[in-house]
């Protein structure tokens, strides 16, 4: 049987969330959880939950995963399907050892998670519209390879690419803040944990109508 790689499809709100988190924490590494649906041929990244802007530890990871699962309870087939990272160094294009370790930890017997790595230089170009960079160029997706490392490139597209690119550029230029779970803990329990699910009250509320998503 031919071994086909699944195609990774990123929703506009997930793209916007990850990009804004990375833009806000441009001097630090970013990490977060990807949530969506999976089939043999496609992985649909519906939402992104920014977790931290530091190297994650086991207690943080365990708690974050539990909270994400709890947040998506009752959302049908939606489940945790991967991890995203935005490297600290601008020119880094591959995931670090910590991200791969996390993917290995969240891997199950039936499914391997997807690892999305933000290409920071490309995001910078997108924000400055200097080279016509599109949103699909701002991420690389990786699956597990034969060496059990997340280095196998996977094909990727971003939905509604043109409008997503424009809205992301606008949001970055406006300096929209995207806090993560560790920020939520720092600011207190009443503060919002910003992720792409709570679009009606979070920093994405002004941009979601422009993306024509629910």
């Amino acid at each position, binding site marked *: 049987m031919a071994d086909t790689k699944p195609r990774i499809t990123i929703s506009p709100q997930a793209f916007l969330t990850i990009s804004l988190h990375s833009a806000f924490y441009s001097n630090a*590494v970013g990490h977060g959880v990807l949530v969506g649906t999976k089939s043999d041929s496609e992985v649909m990244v519906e939402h992104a939950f920014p977790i931290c802007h530091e190297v994650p*530890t086991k*207690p943080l990871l365990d*708690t974050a995963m539990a909270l994400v699962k709890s*947040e998506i309870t009752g959302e049908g087939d939606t489940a945790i399907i991967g991890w995203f990272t935005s490297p600290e160094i601008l020119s880094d294009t591959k995931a670090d050892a910590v991200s791969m370790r996390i993917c290995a930890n969240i891997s199950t017997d039936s499914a391997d998670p997807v690892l999305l790595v933000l290409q920071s230089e490309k995001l910078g170009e997108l924000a400055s519209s200097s080279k016509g960079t599109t949103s699909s160029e701002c991420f690389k997706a990786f699956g597990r390879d034969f060496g059990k490392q997340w280095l196998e490139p996977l094909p990727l597209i971003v939905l509604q690419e043109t409008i997503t690119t424009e809205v992301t550029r606008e949001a970055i230029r406006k300096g929209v803040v995207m806090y993560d779970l560790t920020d939520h803990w720092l600011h207190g329990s009443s503060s919002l944990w910003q992720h792409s699910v709570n679009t009606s009250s979070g920093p994405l509320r002004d941009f979601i109508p422009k993306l024509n998503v629910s």
Partner: protein
Amino acid sequence: MMGPNEDLDTLVDRKDHLGVLRYVRAHELREPSLVVAHGKSLLGEELSKNLDDEAARLSVLEQLCLAALDVNDHELGEKCLALLKEKVGNESARFRRLLARCLEAAGDYEQAGLIYDELLKDNPANLVALQRKYCIARAQQKEPEEVVAALNEYLGQQLSDVSGWYEMAKLRLSLADFKGAAYALEQVVLGSPLDADIHRQLAEVYATIGGLENLVLARKHMAQALELDGSNIRAQFGLVSVANQYLEESAQAGKKELDEHERLVAKELVKYGSSEVLKTYKGTKMFAAVTRVIDDYADSIESL
């Protein structure tokens, strides 16, 4: 003149430019835009105004130069450097240090490194030079062993530098060397025993390394973090997580390793942490989601 009760906002409102710059220097704040604005207001756009105190003017020029580098205004930085060179010459160690910083900012790490090497030849305990050599190693993205060695060299001369040890901890974490990070954080705890967040970080690192002994240490430090700051939400969740992790690992351990007293303590800590988390989130939008998580922990400890 800046008095003991002056705060930065008062000095800024009063347009006491020299006072603002002294405040920033004394409190070791990183406010480059503020320094550039007040430095230019004090010395003029061409930095040609004199002050009554020549030593104060030279300090301002040095501070302005570093701030200019921070905001990527290399032209301003070079102007300050040129004016300082006129006054102090280029043999002064302090001037050479500043010159090396300017070279670093311009990306000329080779030349900057040479200057620091010369400074270290004159004085092998020149801490600033050792610090900058580490920074250059990081900026050049050298091999991890080299970067760690550079920081080790600095810490070898300055064992009591808590922020240096914290930098080592962050470096080790970025290399996924959690054992090294734990050692470094232990040194930070020695220097800052009342910092709740450091205890919390150390606890998380011990829990990441794993093993029953480390999990006992993790529990202790997480409990200490909450003792010092009961409102630390991350430590509240952390206590539940590490105590639960101890129960899971001890359930798989052999009879020799099993300590029933420690297991009872762990169960009580899970219950305590859970109640603190629920108290913290009561009445908030996330209460339902958090309750589900805590209920899962409660169910799991019953079976362990």
